[in-house]
Protein backbone atom coordinates (compact mmCIF):
# COMPACT_ATOMS: atom_id res chain seq x y z
CA UNK A 1 0.00 0.00 0.00
CA UNK A 2 1.19 3.60 -0.69
CA UNK A 3 3.34 5.34 1.90
CA UNK A 4 1.28 7.53 4.26
CA UNK A 5 1.15 11.06 2.86
CA UNK A 6 -0.91 14.20 3.37
CA UNK A 7 -4.52 13.00 3.67
CA UNK A 8 -6.65 13.40 0.57
CA UNK A 9 -9.79 13.55 2.67
CA UNK A 10 -10.26 14.29 6.34
CA UNK A 11 -13.49 14.02 8.30
CA UNK A 12 -13.55 15.33 11.85
CA UNK A 13 -16.47 14.74 14.22
CA UNK A 14 -18.91 14.54 11.32
CA UNK A 15 -22.51 14.01 12.39
CA UNK A 16 -25.67 13.85 10.29
CA UNK A 17 -29.01 13.76 12.03
CA UNK A 18 -32.46 13.18 10.54
CA UNK A 19 -34.77 14.33 13.26
CA UNK A 20 -34.11 11.88 16.06
CA UNK A 21 -32.16 9.43 13.91
CA UNK A 22 -28.37 9.64 14.03
CA UNK A 23 -27.47 8.46 10.54
CA UNK A 24 -23.82 9.42 10.97
CA UNK A 25 -22.42 9.98 14.42
CA UNK A 26 -19.10 11.55 15.35
CA UNK A 27 -17.12 10.10 12.47
CA UNK A 28 -13.39 10.85 12.35
CA UNK A 29 -11.69 9.58 9.24
CA UNK A 30 -8.51 10.17 7.28
CA UNK A 31 -8.00 8.88 3.77
CA UNK A 32 -4.62 9.22 2.08
CA UNK A 33 -4.17 9.22 -1.69
CA UNK A 34 -4.11 5.70 -3.01
CA UNK A 35 -5.99 4.25 -0.06
CA UNK A 36 -8.68 1.73 -0.72
CA UNK A 37 -11.18 1.55 2.10
CA UNK A 38 -13.98 -0.96 2.49
CA UNK A 39 -16.94 0.18 4.59
CA UNK A 40 -19.14 -2.50 6.09
CA UNK A 41 -22.16 -2.22 8.33
CA UNK A 42 -25.69 -3.45 8.87
CA UNK A 43 -28.68 -2.01 7.08
CA UNK A 44 -29.38 1.48 8.27
CA UNK A 45 -25.90 1.91 9.73
CA UNK A 46 -25.40 5.16 7.84
CA UNK A 47 -23.00 4.11 5.10
CA UNK A 48 -24.94 5.71 2.29
CA UNK A 49 -25.46 8.85 4.30
CA UNK A 50 -21.75 8.98 5.03
CA UNK A 51 -20.91 8.81 1.33
CA UNK A 52 -23.54 11.43 0.54
CA UNK A 53 -21.97 13.72 3.10
CA UNK A 54 -18.51 13.16 1.66
CA UNK A 55 -19.85 13.78 -1.84
CA UNK A 56 -21.27 17.01 -0.35
CA UNK A 57 -24.74 16.06 -1.58
CA UNK A 58 -25.97 16.90 1.89
CA UNK A 59 -24.62 19.11 4.64
CA UNK A 60 -23.55 17.38 7.83
CA UNK A 61 -25.41 18.50 10.93
CA UNK A 62 -22.02 19.21 12.48
CA UNK A 63 -18.35 18.51 11.88
CA UNK A 64 -15.81 19.31 9.16
CA UNK A 65 -14.85 17.74 5.86
CA UNK A 66 -11.64 18.72 4.10
CA UNK A 67 -10.38 17.74 0.69
CA UNK A 68 -6.81 18.14 -0.49
CA UNK A 69 -6.59 17.28 -4.16
CA UNK A 70 -3.33 17.84 -5.91
CA UNK A 71 -3.75 20.02 -8.93
CA UNK A 72 -6.74 22.32 -8.54
CA UNK A 73 -8.83 22.50 -5.40
CA UNK A 74 -11.96 22.14 -7.51
CA UNK A 75 -12.94 18.93 -5.78
CA UNK A 76 -16.04 18.25 -7.83
CA UNK A 77 -14.50 16.89 -11.01
CA UNK A 78 -12.15 14.72 -8.96
CA UNK A 79 -14.93 12.68 -7.35
CA UNK A 80 -16.77 9.75 -8.93
CA UNK A 81 -19.93 8.68 -7.14
CA UNK A 82 -22.04 5.54 -7.49
CA UNK A 83 -25.23 5.83 -5.46
CA UNK A 84 -28.37 3.77 -5.00
CA UNK A 85 -29.87 5.95 -7.72
CA UNK A 86 -28.60 5.55 -11.26
CA UNK A 87 -28.29 9.30 -12.02
CA UNK A 88 -29.21 8.44 -15.60
CA UNK A 89 -31.87 9.90 -17.86
CA UNK A 90 -34.40 7.21 -18.70
CA UNK A 91 -35.37 9.02 -21.89
CA UNK A 92 -31.83 9.02 -23.26
CA UNK A 93 -29.95 6.07 -24.70
CA UNK A 94 -26.92 4.63 -22.93
CA UNK A 95 -24.63 6.42 -25.33
CA UNK A 96 -26.42 9.73 -25.07
CA UNK A 97 -26.23 9.56 -21.28
CA UNK A 98 -22.49 9.02 -21.27
CA UNK A 99 -21.99 11.62 -23.98
CA UNK A 100 -23.91 14.16 -21.94
CA UNK A 101 -21.90 13.54 -18.79
CA UNK A 102 -18.63 13.47 -20.72
CA UNK A 103 -19.40 16.94 -22.06
CA UNK A 104 -20.57 18.08 -18.66
CA UNK A 105 -17.15 17.14 -17.30
CA UNK A 106 -15.49 18.87 -20.22
CA UNK A 107 -13.85 15.74 -21.57
CA UNK A 108 -12.18 16.04 -24.98
CA UNK A 109 -13.32 13.57 -27.64
CA UNK A 110 -16.48 12.96 -25.66
CA UNK A 111 -17.83 10.61 -28.31
CA UNK A 112 -14.87 8.27 -28.22
CA UNK A 113 -14.76 8.33 -24.45
CA UNK A 114 -18.43 7.41 -24.21
CA UNK A 115 -18.05 4.52 -26.63
CA UNK A 116 -14.89 3.40 -24.85
CA UNK A 117 -16.69 3.21 -21.51
CA UNK A 118 -19.65 1.41 -23.06
CA UNK A 119 -17.29 -1.20 -24.45
CA UNK A 120 -15.46 -1.44 -21.14
CA UNK A 121 -18.68 -2.33 -19.31
CA UNK A 122 -19.87 -4.59 -22.13
CA UNK A 123 -22.82 -2.51 -23.20
CA UNK A 124 -22.06 -2.04 -26.90
CA UNK A 125 -25.14 -4.10 -27.59
CA UNK A 126 -27.43 -1.65 -25.80
CA UNK A 127 -25.66 1.49 -27.03
CA UNK A 128 -28.74 3.00 -28.66
CA UNK A 129 -31.40 1.67 -26.33
CA UNK A 130 -33.24 3.97 -23.92
CA UNK A 131 -31.83 3.45 -20.43
CA UNK A 132 -35.42 3.36 -19.23
CA UNK A 133 -35.63 0.02 -21.03
CA UNK A 134 -32.41 -1.38 -19.62
CA UNK A 135 -32.46 -4.34 -17.30
CA UNK A 136 -31.30 -3.71 -13.77
CA UNK A 137 -27.82 -5.06 -14.35
CA UNK A 138 -27.41 -3.17 -17.60
CA UNK A 139 -28.40 0.01 -15.81
CA UNK A 140 -25.91 -0.68 -13.05
CA UNK A 141 -23.18 -1.20 -15.62
CA UNK A 142 -24.00 2.12 -17.19
CA UNK A 143 -24.06 3.75 -13.77
CA UNK A 144 -20.54 2.50 -13.17
CA UNK A 145 -19.45 3.69 -16.60
CA UNK A 146 -20.87 7.11 -15.78
CA UNK A 147 -19.00 7.30 -12.49
CA UNK A 148 -15.65 6.31 -14.02
CA UNK A 149 -16.10 8.40 -17.15
CA UNK A 150 -13.99 11.36 -16.00
CA UNK A 151 -11.26 9.29 -14.37
CA UNK A 152 -11.89 10.62 -10.87
CA UNK A 153 -9.20 10.59 -8.19
CA UNK A 154 -11.63 9.67 -5.45
CA UNK A 155 -14.22 6.95 -5.99
CA UNK A 156 -17.28 6.71 -3.74
CA UNK A 157 -18.88 3.35 -4.50
CA UNK A 158 -22.15 2.49 -2.76
CA UNK A 159 -22.81 -1.22 -3.33
CA UNK A 160 -21.50 -1.07 -6.94
CA UNK A 161 -21.98 -4.80 -7.49
CA UNK A 162 -25.74 -4.63 -7.12
CA UNK A 163 -27.42 -6.55 -9.93
CA UNK A 164 -24.22 -7.33 -11.82
CA UNK A 165 -23.93 -10.82 -13.29
CA UNK A 166 -20.83 -13.02 -13.21
CA UNK A 167 -19.21 -11.32 -16.18
CA UNK A 168 -20.17 -7.93 -14.89
CA UNK A 169 -18.72 -8.32 -11.42
CA UNK A 170 -15.51 -9.86 -12.75
CA UNK A 171 -15.25 -7.03 -15.25
CA UNK A 172 -15.71 -4.41 -12.57
CA UNK A 173 -13.35 -6.11 -10.13
CA UNK A 174 -10.72 -5.96 -12.87
CA UNK A 175 -11.43 -2.28 -13.43
CA UNK A 176 -11.08 -1.58 -9.72
CA UNK A 177 -7.76 -3.44 -9.58
CA UNK A 178 -6.40 -1.28 -12.38
CA UNK A 179 -7.67 1.89 -10.75
CA UNK A 180 -5.95 0.87 -7.52
CA UNK A 181 -2.67 0.33 -9.30
CA UNK A 182 -3.05 3.76 -10.85
CA UNK A 183 -3.11 5.02 -7.28
CA UNK A 184 -6.71 6.22 -7.20
CA UNK A 185 -8.48 6.43 -3.87
CA UNK A 186 -11.47 4.16 -3.34
CA UNK A 187 -14.23 4.10 -0.74
CA UNK A 188 -16.24 0.93 -1.25
CA UNK A 189 -19.48 0.21 0.58
CA UNK A 190 -20.56 -3.40 0.31
CA UNK A 191 -22.28 -6.19 2.21
CA UNK A 192 -20.05 -8.85 0.72
CA UNK A 193 -17.27 -9.18 3.30
CA UNK A 194 -14.90 -11.37 1.28
CA UNK A 195 -15.23 -9.09 -1.75
CA UNK A 196 -14.43 -6.04 0.33
CA UNK A 197 -11.49 -7.65 2.09
CA UNK A 198 -10.11 -8.89 -1.19
CA UNK A 199 -10.26 -5.53 -2.91
CA UNK A 200 -9.33 -3.08 -0.21
CA UNK A 201 -6.29 -2.40 1.97
CA UNK A 202 -8.25 -0.83 4.79
CA UNK A 203 -11.57 -1.89 6.24
CA UNK A 204 -13.96 -0.22 8.62
CA UNK A 205 -17.28 -1.15 10.18
CA UNK A 206 -20.06 1.32 10.82
CA UNK A 207 -22.90 0.66 13.19
CA UNK A 208 -25.71 3.02 14.10
CA UNK A 209 -23.77 5.88 12.55
CA UNK A 210 -20.56 5.29 14.48
CA UNK A 211 -17.32 3.78 13.21
CA UNK A 212 -16.96 0.79 15.52
CA UNK A 213 -13.91 -0.75 13.86
CA UNK A 214 -10.99 0.30 11.69
CA UNK A 215 -8.10 -1.87 10.54
CA UNK A 216 -5.82 -2.99 7.76
CA UNK A 217 -7.18 -5.65 5.44
CA UNK A 218 -4.06 -7.73 5.13
CA UNK A 219 -4.10 -8.73 8.78
CA UNK A 220 -7.56 -10.19 8.42
CA UNK A 221 -8.72 -13.51 6.99
CA UNK A 222 -12.32 -13.88 5.91
CA UNK A 223 -13.47 -16.22 8.69
CA UNK A 224 -11.78 -14.19 11.41
CA UNK A 225 -13.19 -10.97 10.10
CA UNK A 226 -16.72 -12.29 9.88
CA UNK A 227 -16.38 -13.20 13.54
CA UNK A 228 -15.19 -9.69 14.23
CA UNK A 229 -17.94 -8.10 12.20
CA UNK A 230 -20.67 -9.84 14.10
CA UNK A 231 -19.12 -8.90 17.41
CA UNK A 232 -18.80 -5.29 16.27
CA UNK A 233 -22.42 -4.96 15.23
CA UNK A 234 -23.56 -7.36 17.95
CA UNK A 235 -24.97 -4.71 20.21
CA UNK A 236 -28.07 -4.49 18.05
CA UNK A 237 -27.63 -4.15 14.28
CA UNK A 238 -30.72 -2.40 13.04
Amino acid at each position, binding site marked *: MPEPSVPLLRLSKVTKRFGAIRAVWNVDLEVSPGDSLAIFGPNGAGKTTLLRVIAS*LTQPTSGEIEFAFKGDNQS*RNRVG*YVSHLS*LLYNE*LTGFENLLFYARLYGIKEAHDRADEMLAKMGLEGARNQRTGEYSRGMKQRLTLARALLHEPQLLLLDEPYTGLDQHGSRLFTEVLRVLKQEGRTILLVTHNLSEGLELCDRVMIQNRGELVFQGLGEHLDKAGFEELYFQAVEEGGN
Partner: protein
Amino acid sequence: MNPIALTWVLVGKDLKIEYRSRQAYLTTVFFAILILVIFNFAFDPGSPATREAASGILWVALLFPGIIRLNRSFQVEMEEGTLYGLILSPADRGVLFLGKLLANWLFLMVVDLLVFLAFVIVYNFSFSTQLLWIVLLIVLFALGFSAVGTLLGAMVSTIRTREVLLPVLLFPIILPIILPAVSGTQEILLAQEIQSLNRSVELLVAFDLIYLAAGYLLFDYVVAD
Protein backbone atom coordinates in the same frame (compact mmCIF):
# COMPACT_ATOMS: atom_id res chain seq x y z
CA MET B 1 -15.39 23.51 -21.77
CA ASN B 2 -16.58 27.08 -22.13
CA PRO B 3 -19.79 28.14 -20.41
CA ILE B 4 -21.76 28.89 -23.58
CA ALA B 5 -21.04 25.52 -25.11
CA LEU B 6 -21.85 23.86 -21.79
CA THR B 7 -25.13 25.72 -21.54
CA TRP B 8 -26.09 24.41 -24.94
CA VAL B 9 -25.20 20.87 -23.94
CA LEU B 10 -27.65 21.23 -21.05
CA VAL B 11 -30.33 22.79 -23.21
CA GLY B 12 -29.86 20.17 -25.89
CA LYS B 13 -30.30 17.42 -23.32
CA ASP B 14 -33.55 18.88 -22.01
CA LEU B 15 -35.00 19.46 -25.45
CA LYS B 16 -34.08 15.95 -26.55
CA ILE B 17 -35.85 14.50 -23.50
CA GLU B 18 -38.88 16.67 -24.13
CA TYR B 19 -38.93 15.58 -27.73
CA ARG B 20 -38.79 11.93 -26.68
CA SER B 21 -41.92 12.45 -24.59
CA ARG B 22 -44.02 14.68 -26.79
CA GLN B 23 -46.86 14.40 -24.31
CA ALA B 24 -45.54 17.50 -22.61
CA TYR B 25 -46.20 19.73 -25.62
CA LEU B 26 -49.56 18.34 -26.56
CA THR B 27 -51.09 18.20 -23.11
CA THR B 28 -50.04 21.69 -22.14
CA VAL B 29 -51.23 23.20 -25.40
CA PHE B 30 -54.40 21.20 -25.12
CA PHE B 31 -55.29 22.50 -21.69
CA ALA B 32 -54.56 26.04 -22.67
CA ILE B 33 -56.88 25.69 -25.64
CA LEU B 34 -59.50 24.07 -23.45
CA ILE B 35 -59.46 27.20 -21.33
CA LEU B 36 -59.95 29.36 -24.39
CA VAL B 37 -62.87 27.21 -25.42
CA ILE B 38 -64.45 27.39 -21.99
CA PHE B 39 -64.32 31.18 -21.95
CA ASN B 40 -65.36 31.37 -25.53
CA PHE B 41 -68.32 29.31 -24.50
CA ALA B 42 -68.98 31.44 -21.43
CA PHE B 43 -69.64 34.58 -23.45
CA ASP B 44 -70.34 35.14 -27.08
CA PRO B 45 -67.05 35.99 -28.81
CA GLY B 46 -68.49 38.93 -30.74
CA SER B 47 -69.50 41.07 -27.80
CA PRO B 48 -67.44 44.09 -26.68
CA ALA B 49 -67.43 42.56 -23.21
CA THR B 50 -65.41 39.68 -24.57
CA ARG B 51 -62.93 41.96 -26.29
CA GLU B 52 -62.42 43.67 -22.97
CA ALA B 53 -61.79 40.43 -21.12
CA ALA B 54 -59.79 38.90 -23.96
CA SER B 55 -56.36 39.83 -22.71
CA GLY B 56 -57.15 38.39 -19.30
CA ILE B 57 -58.32 35.16 -20.87
CA LEU B 58 -55.19 34.88 -22.97
CA TRP B 59 -52.87 35.28 -20.01
CA VAL B 60 -54.74 32.91 -17.78
CA ALA B 61 -54.51 30.37 -20.58
CA LEU B 62 -50.78 31.00 -20.82
CA LEU B 63 -50.20 30.41 -17.12
CA PHE B 64 -51.32 26.79 -17.47
CA PRO B 65 -48.57 25.50 -19.76
CA GLY B 66 -46.09 27.48 -17.74
CA ILE B 67 -46.82 25.82 -14.44
CA ILE B 68 -47.14 22.34 -15.90
CA ARG B 69 -43.86 22.79 -17.72
CA LEU B 70 -41.97 23.89 -14.63
CA ASN B 71 -43.30 21.02 -12.57
CA ARG B 72 -42.17 18.60 -15.21
CA SER B 73 -38.83 20.23 -15.81
CA PHE B 74 -37.48 19.20 -12.40
CA GLN B 75 -39.55 16.07 -12.01
CA VAL B 76 -37.45 14.66 -14.85
CA GLU B 77 -34.31 15.46 -12.88
CA MET B 78 -35.61 13.82 -9.72
CA GLU B 79 -36.74 10.50 -11.22
CA GLU B 80 -33.30 8.89 -11.18
CA GLY B 81 -31.51 11.50 -9.12
CA THR B 82 -29.94 13.10 -12.17
CA LEU B 83 -30.20 16.44 -10.40
CA TYR B 84 -27.44 15.13 -8.14
CA GLY B 85 -25.52 14.16 -11.25
CA LEU B 86 -25.62 17.78 -12.34
CA ILE B 87 -24.72 19.08 -8.91
CA LEU B 88 -21.76 16.72 -8.62
CA SER B 89 -20.40 17.84 -11.96
CA PRO B 90 -17.81 20.63 -12.09
CA ALA B 91 -20.26 22.70 -14.14
CA ASP B 92 -20.79 26.12 -12.63
CA ARG B 93 -24.14 26.45 -10.87
CA GLY B 94 -24.91 29.58 -12.81
CA VAL B 95 -24.50 27.60 -16.01
CA LEU B 96 -26.80 24.87 -14.74
CA PHE B 97 -29.36 27.58 -14.06
CA LEU B 98 -28.99 29.12 -17.49
CA GLY B 99 -29.28 25.71 -19.11
CA LYS B 100 -32.56 24.88 -17.43
CA LEU B 101 -33.77 28.42 -17.87
CA LEU B 102 -33.16 28.46 -21.60
CA ALA B 103 -34.72 25.05 -22.08
CA ASN B 104 -37.82 26.17 -20.22
CA TRP B 105 -37.90 29.46 -22.05
CA LEU B 106 -37.67 27.89 -25.48
CA PHE B 107 -40.30 25.34 -24.56
CA LEU B 108 -42.66 27.97 -23.22
CA MET B 109 -42.23 30.25 -26.21
CA VAL B 110 -43.18 27.48 -28.59
CA VAL B 111 -46.21 26.45 -26.56
CA ASP B 112 -47.29 30.00 -25.76
CA LEU B 113 -47.12 31.06 -29.36
CA LEU B 114 -49.23 28.09 -30.37
CA VAL B 115 -51.76 29.03 -27.71
CA PHE B 116 -51.68 32.63 -28.88
CA LEU B 117 -52.33 31.47 -32.42
CA ALA B 118 -55.31 29.46 -31.22
CA PHE B 119 -56.45 32.50 -29.27
CA VAL B 120 -56.35 34.81 -32.27
CA ILE B 121 -58.31 32.31 -34.28
CA VAL B 122 -60.89 31.40 -31.66
CA TYR B 123 -61.62 35.05 -30.88
CA ASN B 124 -61.17 35.97 -34.52
CA PHE B 125 -58.93 38.96 -34.11
CA SER B 126 -57.61 40.21 -37.42
CA PHE B 127 -53.94 39.44 -37.94
CA SER B 128 -52.12 42.77 -37.86
CA THR B 129 -48.64 43.99 -37.12
CA GLN B 130 -50.10 45.15 -33.82
CA LEU B 131 -50.20 41.54 -32.69
CA LEU B 132 -46.43 41.36 -32.99
CA TRP B 133 -46.33 43.58 -29.94
CA ILE B 134 -48.21 40.88 -28.05
CA VAL B 135 -45.73 38.31 -29.29
CA LEU B 136 -43.01 40.51 -27.86
CA LEU B 137 -44.84 40.70 -24.53
CA ILE B 138 -45.21 36.92 -24.52
CA VAL B 139 -41.54 36.36 -25.23
CA LEU B 140 -40.49 38.77 -22.50
CA PHE B 141 -42.96 37.31 -20.04
CA ALA B 142 -41.87 33.77 -20.81
CA LEU B 143 -38.29 34.77 -20.05
CA GLY B 144 -39.02 36.26 -16.65
CA PHE B 145 -41.41 33.45 -15.83
CA SER B 146 -38.82 30.80 -16.68
CA ALA B 147 -36.20 32.63 -14.65
CA VAL B 148 -38.16 32.71 -11.41
CA GLY B 149 -39.80 29.40 -12.20
CA THR B 150 -36.50 27.61 -12.71
CA LEU B 151 -35.21 28.95 -9.42
CA LEU B 152 -38.32 28.03 -7.45
CA GLY B 153 -38.76 24.78 -9.37
CA ALA B 154 -35.33 23.63 -8.29
CA MET B 155 -36.19 24.70 -4.77
CA VAL B 156 -39.39 22.70 -4.39
CA SER B 157 -38.14 19.72 -6.41
CA THR B 158 -37.23 17.87 -3.22
CA ILE B 159 -40.48 18.71 -1.42
CA ARG B 160 -43.28 16.17 -1.59
CA THR B 161 -46.06 18.65 -2.30
CA ARG B 162 -44.21 20.37 -5.11
CA GLU B 163 -47.02 20.15 -7.66
CA VAL B 164 -49.18 22.41 -5.54
CA LEU B 165 -46.50 24.34 -3.75
CA LEU B 166 -44.83 25.62 -6.90
CA PRO B 167 -47.78 27.63 -8.21
CA VAL B 168 -48.47 28.89 -4.73
CA LEU B 169 -44.97 30.30 -4.53
CA LEU B 170 -44.72 31.34 -8.14
CA PHE B 171 -47.97 33.10 -8.97
CA PRO B 172 -47.75 35.91 -6.44
CA ILE B 173 -44.07 36.40 -7.16
CA ILE B 174 -44.51 36.98 -10.86
CA LEU B 175 -47.01 39.78 -10.35
CA PRO B 176 -44.53 42.41 -11.57
CA ILE B 177 -44.33 40.76 -14.97
CA ILE B 178 -47.88 39.53 -15.35
CA LEU B 179 -49.42 42.91 -14.56
CA PRO B 180 -47.72 44.83 -17.37
CA ALA B 181 -48.18 41.90 -19.72
CA VAL B 182 -51.95 41.86 -19.19
CA SER B 183 -52.43 45.61 -19.33
CA GLY B 184 -50.15 45.89 -22.34
CA THR B 185 -52.03 43.20 -24.22
CA GLN B 186 -55.35 44.79 -23.38
CA GLU B 187 -54.26 48.12 -24.82
CA ILE B 188 -53.24 46.46 -28.05
CA LEU B 189 -56.35 44.34 -28.37
CA LEU B 190 -58.66 47.27 -27.66
CA ALA B 191 -56.52 49.09 -30.20
CA GLN B 192 -56.42 52.16 -28.02
CA GLU B 193 -53.79 54.74 -28.75
CA ILE B 194 -50.69 53.01 -27.46
CA GLN B 195 -49.55 55.24 -24.62
CA SER B 196 -48.46 53.16 -21.65
CA LEU B 197 -47.37 50.17 -23.74
CA ASN B 198 -43.77 51.28 -23.67
CA ARG B 199 -43.86 51.28 -19.90
CA SER B 200 -45.24 47.78 -19.88
CA VAL B 201 -42.35 46.65 -22.06
CA GLU B 202 -39.84 48.53 -19.97
CA LEU B 203 -41.22 46.96 -16.80
CA LEU B 204 -41.03 43.49 -18.31
CA VAL B 205 -37.46 43.99 -19.45
CA ALA B 206 -36.47 45.43 -16.11
CA PHE B 207 -37.89 42.56 -14.11
CA ASP B 208 -36.63 39.96 -16.55
CA LEU B 209 -33.17 41.30 -15.83
CA ILE B 210 -33.77 41.39 -12.08
CA TYR B 211 -35.07 37.82 -12.04
CA LEU B 212 -32.25 36.61 -14.26
CA ALA B 213 -29.68 38.15 -11.95
CA ALA B 214 -31.41 36.86 -8.84
CA GLY B 215 -31.73 33.37 -10.30
CA TYR B 216 -28.15 33.30 -11.50
CA LEU B 217 -26.84 34.32 -8.11
CA LEU B 218 -29.20 32.34 -5.88
CA PHE B 219 -29.42 29.07 -7.83
CA ASP B 220 -26.39 27.73 -6.03
CA TYR B 221 -28.32 27.84 -2.77
CA VAL B 222 -31.44 26.07 -3.95
CA VAL B 223 -29.90 23.03 -5.62
CA ALA B 224 -28.63 20.28 -3.31
CA ASP B 225 -30.04 20.16 0.15
